[in-house]
Structure formats: structure tokens, C-alpha cells
């Protein structure tokens, strides 16, 4: 699958990119197509489609990357990008190796979304709307969105690699607003995968009901507690905890700049022995999976924590070269307009043997964070923060009441070491991760996980 680039043209473009020297050159060609729409006030709106194609060319010399991108995939467009990338170099011509095609089977798509009538997608959103509003008269507002996106990519580099991928992702999201007297609460849920329309053949309306139920539950919420206490984190999107507090700090660019609290920790015990965690770009049809990364390296399953020991960082081509190791297939980019950088794919804590009920029963007073609205970390200091979208108070080993407006805050190394129970109820959820101004789809997952002590920032005095 390297259909966007003619090999002879690609070789010529790589040669031009190296006209003023450079030890590595690459051309990344991409065709994108997407369709999205939403429902609001029970009306289908914001129907939008788009198509773009273009290429990015980079040349690496010394510690510097020279990059240029253009719209269009005609040979003249590609040559223009190569010339612009090479323009700031002043060295002697180097020669690329002849291209050798490497085929990777793209992830299977059973039902191409672009072959499904748009009206069918609109009907799906109407079903979500009805299902959410069916949860009760207190559902005052409901919005849902549908999005499909296809990215065909072709990659050729001066090491002779010539490969490509064809990726299709489908995702729906639901957001409900519940109102009772003066109280307003919201609930959200998503469903997405590296799959086609087959993703939506089971019961997509379920997420609408889940979003509505969350909002309705919160109508009875009181203020969230404040202070340090045990926190039980729910399965699935709860995995964003590990994504933020460990995953980002393992990205090799942060490590190599000394801007991560995990610098010098490789091989060390950073968590209790019950913890095993992975970044896995090969999970079948998962949201963060691809056949290859955006530099043409096959995606792989990388164990990053083994029995509590830190076992690997996450590498792209350049950071791997610097450390003298192989890329872990984590070189990703938002589009042909961006440079690849080390990014997570699907990151998860492997299932343990505790049950959620046991974990909660052992907590005298604590907080139960079922799901998050998102999180953020500063890898250099390890400070993280998570907004809780659905949380409850735990008192006397029992979940007692819902809480609104809670945030979890802490430091990576302390919180990671404080994970003292991992649940057996594993599942994955979808996320959109931002780094360096680039957004990429990532999967996060886990069963229930308990952190022995973490700061909950609420408004309760």
C-alpha cells in the first residue's frame, strides 16, 4: 500500500531533498477525506465534508531537521517541497538508497463509511437523540456528533523504505444536559475505533443513554471533597490517568531533553509489582492502532512497566537513532503538515486480579472517579491534573453519593508508586491527545485501579 507515490517520482524527490547534503530524507504523502455531522435541538446540522492531499518532505543533517510541506501530490508539488526543505542546507549532495517496497496489510475495514448513505448517518443521530431524551423529562438538551475520517499515507525515505497505510476511523459522541429547578448537569460518552461503519451496527444508541444517565445522576450530586485520600479510578477512560502520569513522560523526546521525571529510571522499580503496562499500536482495530507509524515503522506492543519496573521508553526514528535503539513504532504526526514526534498509540494498564467491589470495600473514606473529562501533565515536573466527569464519595467501604466539580491533582512518580490495586474488568476507550500543537487519536484502557493517596480538589470545606 503505497499508492499515492510513484516509486520513480519518490526516488527523484528524495534525491532532490538531499541535493545540498543530509544523512536522511523522507517524503510523506497523504490523502485525507472526512465527513462529520451533528444533532442539536433534535435537528441535524453542521454537515461537513472535506478532502485534502499534500506532502511533507524532511531532511536531517546533524541535529537539525529541515521540513517543508505543500498541498497537492503532483510531481511538481513534491519537488517544490523537496527544494524548500533542502534550501537551508549548504553541504555536498548525498545519495538516497534505491527504494524497496514493504507491504503492510492495513487494518481490515468491513463497511466503508463513505459507501454508507449520509441519510443513514443522520438517522443514527436521530436515534441517539430519541434514546437520550427517553431517559427522562429532565434531559433538557442533547447533542451528538458523527465523524468518519480516512487517511491514506505513503512514505518513502533515503534508507530505501517505501511503504504505506490506509486508515479509516469512525467515532460518535453524545452529550446530555439535565436540568432540575436551578441545577444543571452534563454527561458525555463516546464510541470510536479504527473501523468502518460496522462499529455502529450493534447498539450505538447505548452511549446516548449512558450520557443521559450520567447527567441525571449528577443532579443529585453534592460538592466534591478536598484533600488527600484513596482514589478508585474506573475502567476504560480511567486509563487516561496512566497516559498522562506515565505515558507522556516515557516519550523519548522528553527523556532526551531531561524534561521528564522518568529520566534515569529505566530498569528501576517505579511502581508496585502488581503493575504491568503497555503501549500497543497493534490492538486489533483499536482507536489508536495503525499498521505502521507515520515514519513507516511497523507498530508494536511495547511493555513499558513490567512487575512495577520501568522497561522501555517510546521512540520515533530520530530519538531511537540518538539512543542507538530501534524505533518502537511511535513516530506519529497529525498530518502531512506536521513533523513526526514520539507519541503514544493505545496505552493501558494490564488487568490485575482485584474486583472493583473489593477495592471500594477496603476504603474507609475516599473518592471514586468513574470517568474523566480529560487530563494534563507537565512531563518535566511530573505535575498532573485530571477533571472528573463522574465521581462519587466512598464512605465506610461503600459508594455513598455523587460529587460535582472534582479535580485530581498530584505528581507522577508518587501517584504511580501509590497504585495498590488493579482490577480484572479491563476495557479500552478512545481519546484525542494533544502534544506540540498536534492532535492524534489514542486509546486508553485499564480495569478499575486504586491509588492509595491522591489530592482531590473540590469545593467542600
Amino acid at each position, binding site marked *: 500500500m503505497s499508492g499515492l507515490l510513484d516509486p520513480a517520482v519518490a526516488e527523484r524527490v528524495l534525491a532532490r531533498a538531499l541535493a545540498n547534503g543530509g544523512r536522511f530524507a523522507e517524503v510523506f504523502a497523504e490523502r485525507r477525506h472526512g465527513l462529520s455531522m451533528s444533532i442539536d435541538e433534535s435537528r441535524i446540522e453542521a454537515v461537513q465534508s472535506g478532502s485534502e492531499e499534500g506532502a511533507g518532505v524532511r531532511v536531517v543533517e546533524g541535529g537539525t531537521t529541515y521540513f517543508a510541506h505543500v498541498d497537492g501530490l503532483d510531481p511538481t508539488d513534491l519537488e517544490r517541497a523537496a527544494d524548500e526543505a533542502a534550501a537551508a542546507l549548504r553541504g555536498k549532495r548525498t545519495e538516497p538508497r534505491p527504494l524497496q517496497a514493504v507491504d503492510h496489510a492495513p487494518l481490515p475495514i468491513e463497511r466503508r463509511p463513505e459507501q454508507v448513505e449520509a441519510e443513514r448517518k443522520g438517522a443514527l443521530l436521530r436515534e441517539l437523540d430519541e434514546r437520550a431524551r427517553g431517559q427522562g423529562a429532565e434531559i433538557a438538551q442533547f447533542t451528538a456528533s458523527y465523524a468518519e475520517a480516512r487517511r491514506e499515507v505513503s512514505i518513502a525515505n533515503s534508507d530505501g523504505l517505501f511503504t504505506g497505510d490506509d486508515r479509516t476511523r469512525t467515532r460518535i459522541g453524545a452529550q446530555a*444536559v439535565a436540568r432540575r429547578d436551578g441545577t444543571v448537569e452534563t454527561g458525555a460518552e463516546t464510541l470510536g475505533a479504527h473501523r468502518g461503519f460496522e462499529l455502529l451496527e450493534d447498539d450505538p444508541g447505548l452511549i446516548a443513554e449512558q450520557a443521559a444517565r450520567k447527567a441525571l445522576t449528577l443532579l443529585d450530586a453534592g460538592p466534591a471533597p478536598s484533600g488527600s485520600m484513596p482514589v478508585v479510578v474506573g475502567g476504560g477512560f480511567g486509563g487516561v490517568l496512566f497516559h498522562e502520569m506515565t505515558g507522556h513522560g516515557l516519550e523519548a523526546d522528553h527523556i532526551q531533553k*531531561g524534561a521528564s521525571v522518568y529520566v534515569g529510571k529505566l530498569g528501576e522499580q517505579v511502581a508496585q509489582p502488581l503493575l504491568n503496562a503497555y503501549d500497543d499500536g497493534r490492538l486489533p482495530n483499536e482507536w489508536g492502532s495503525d499498521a505502521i507509524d507515520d515514519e513507516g515503522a511497523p507498530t508494536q506492543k511495547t511493555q513499558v512497566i513490567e512487575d512495577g519496573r520501568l522497561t522501555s521508553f517510546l521512540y520515533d526514528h530520530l530519538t531511537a537513532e540518538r539512543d542507538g535503539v530501534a524505533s518502537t513504532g511511535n513516530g506519529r504526526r497529525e498530518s502531512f503538515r506536521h513533523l513526526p514526534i514520539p507519541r503514544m498509540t493505545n496505552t493501558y494498564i494490564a488487568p490485575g486480579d482485584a474486583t472493583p467491589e473489593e477495592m471500594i470495600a477496603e476504603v474507609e473514606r475516599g473518592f471514586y472517579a468513574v470517568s474523566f473529562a480529560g487530563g494534563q501533565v507537565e512531563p518535566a515536573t511530573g505535575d*498532573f491534573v485530571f477533571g472528573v466527569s463522574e465521581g462519587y464519595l466512598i464512605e465506610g467501604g461503600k459508594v455513598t453519593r455523587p460529587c460535582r466539580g472534582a479535580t485530581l491533582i498530584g505528581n507522577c512518580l508518587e501517584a504511580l508508586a501509590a497504585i495498590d490495586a488493579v482490577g480484572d474488568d479491563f476495557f479500552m476507550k478512545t481519546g484525542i491527545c494533544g502534544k506540540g500543537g498536534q492532535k492524534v487519536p489514542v486509546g486508553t484502557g485499564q480495569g478499575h485501579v486504586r491509588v492509595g493517596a491522591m489530592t482531590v480538589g473540590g469545593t467542600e470545606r
Partner: protein
Amino acid sequence: MSELAASARRAVEAALAAGAGDAEAYASVEDGRELRVHGGEVESLSAASQSGIGIRAWIEGRVGYSYGTDLSEAGVAAIAKAAAEAARVADPDEFAAPPEPAPIESVAGLSDPSLAARSTAEVAELALTVERIALASDPRLVAVEQAVYADVAERVAIASSTGVAGEYESSTCFAYLQALAEGEGSRETGLGFGLARGPDGLDPEAIGAEGATRALAMIGATKPASRSCPVVLDPTVAASFAGLIGGALGARAVQRGRSPFAGKLDEEVASSAFVLHDDGLDPEGPASAPFDAEGVPRRRTALIEGGSLRSYLYDTYTANREGGASTGSASRQGYRSQPSVSASNLVVAAGELSDEQLLGEAGDGLYVTDVAGLHSGVNPVTGVFSVGASGREIRDGALAEPVREFTIAGELVAMLGAVQAAGAEARWVPFGGSVWTPPLLVAEMAISGS
């Protein structure tokens, strides 16, 4: 007419030919560069050129949108056809219509010739200076994770079947760094930044020094005690909150009951110390332009003044719903997104107190220099927020030891009511959109720390 304006005009014709009752085309061409430096070397140098067009089609109250990068005649025809197809999927909405044309006045000073005049080597030197100044400031300033310079020159053209026609050029650039300081067993980060219309408007020494000062000030930070106390928000933090407030004042969210400001027009929503305008015409404002994303003239709109809510922000659709006029508040992220209502430049009025006087007024409290988790810790529908923060203790009216790993929590409208004073020293901040703001003293906020 420029080539770009002609493309927009052709796109409108193509959409009408594809069956649209009305159509609008927004075309843009962008040229930009970005430099990242690290350890005294250029780490990456990117040259970016892109152009594209987005077409909005109306068919009997149904709206569809499509965009693409192929500006050839066949390419534009395909985009126009896709926009009309998208419209047929949407449900009709009686208020959906393109704006009528209004006189557009040019805004001077949107383009800085220094952008084109400064070579890549010169702007590389600018970024390297930012890094060098930070590193030279103090032995405890151990590294600069990244110093970045980026600029973009853009030309925009818009045309519609109702007769809207306009185009303009603008340029923007910025530089920032993330400095790393080490001491007392901890590592701290500090952000310094500047933005301008061109590189000659940036002060690399000041940017580097700001990043270094911020990182160094945090060395030895501990968790503050949980309490309710006066809080001074520095301009970067005040800007983030102003951005949230500007977002909640968009009429779309308000009309659909998804804003804490819904139903509060002309009511008291803030103390008289908090005055907020939207100003789409200030040449120094990064978001300024002669017209908004659907060709309506930009303007200056009082949002919160004298403690009361004076206006929401409207685009044509939300204005039609109330039978009013657009405030020129349609925005989009380039040709890939259809217009939606949002603030242009938010301007928080400066007060009379110097930074020292503001701290003196606070007495004992916290000075917040950074907040994290705004996208997940704030509920835009209810205004309830709890976000991570770091900064300094304020003791006896002066800055004291650094603090981190705490949250500030509350509710947006209640927070505005508690704004006790605005500082005199305001600046442009690229967080929360584009915001001009001084530091703000809030009489009381809930702190959760140790």
C-alpha cells in the same frame, strides 16, 4: 480583484450551479515558518505553505459545508457539489441564512513588513537569543526544553451570493520558551512568550528572561494549605479565565441553555472592577480583521460593564434567532471549519493599581502564575471549575515562597462577582483565544492543597 478573490467568486457560482439557493466561499493562502532551537542549535526548521477553500451552501434553510485544497476549476466544482450534498442531509432551520453585505473598512497595521524582510537566519538568531538569555540568567537554570519562533502571513478572501465581498492580509508571529530550573531536589518549568505582527515587534531578551524568572521562582515549591483566601491571577491566568467567560458569552451556547450566563442579560454578573469588551479592530489584537469569518464587519462590543451583562456575542445565525444584529463574532480555524460564534480579541479593562499595590491589597493569599487542566476541569455549561495551579504565597502584601500542586475551585459567575480590583499593567496573552488583560485580584477562592 485578486486571484484568491476570483477563486472565491467562482466557488460561489459553482455552488449555485450545484443547486444551492445561496452560497458563500472563504479562501485563504498561508505562508509560514517555524523554528525550534535546543542547546544552541536549530533543532527543526519548517516551511509551510497552504491554501484552500471552504464553501457553505444553503438550500431552503438547510446548511452544508465542504472544503478542500484543490483550487483548480474542477477541484472547486467538486467542493461546491459536496457542500450542496451536505446541505441536503441537514434539517431545515428558518434562521439559517447568509449575511447581507455591509460596508467594510480596512484595518491598518495588520501586516508587518518585517516578517518578509527578516531572513530565516535572522529569526533563527532571535530564537537562539531567547534560549541563550535564559541559560545565562542563573546556574540553577539548567536547560531550555525548547525555544520556538513561528510566523505566518495570510491572505483571506470571502464572497457570497448575497453580495458579500472582501479580502485582507495579516501577519502574526510569536516566540516562546519552556525553561527548566533545578534546585532543592526538584525540577521546575517556566514559560516565557511574546507575540507581535512581525519579528521586529518581539523582544527576545525579555522573552528569555521571563521564562527563566518563572522557572527559578518555583524552585523549592511546596503544597499550600487548603483554605479560602484572596487570590491574585497573573495576566496569563486571568487570560485563561477571560477566555472561558468569552466562550460562555457566545450566543449559540446561551440560546441553547448551555451557558452560565443564559438569561442574565442586563443582570449583575460581576463586580464593577471587572470590565470586559470584545474588540475585533485593535491592530495589536492578534484576531483583528476588517470582517469576521462570514464577512460581517468586526467591531468593538461591551460585554460586561458596570457589573452588568451588556451583550452576548452573535454571528448571523444567532442574531437572526433573536431578530437582532450580528456583533461580527463569527470565527473559524481556517478554511477547514465552518463559521461559529466566538470572541475575537477579549479586552479586560486595566485598573489603577500597580502589581505591588495589588499584592498589598490582597494582604495574605495566593498569587497564581499557572493553571492546568482547563479543558477538563471546567464545565462550560454550568461554569463550575476546579483546575490545577501553581504560584506564590502572598504574605503581608508581598510575594513569598513558591507553591504548587493545588487546585483552585469555584464557579465562573461567582468568581467575577468577587473580583476586587484589576491591575494597571496589562499585556496580550495568547491563552484562552487572544486576550488583553491585567492581573486580577479575586477577594476569595477555594484552595485545595495539603
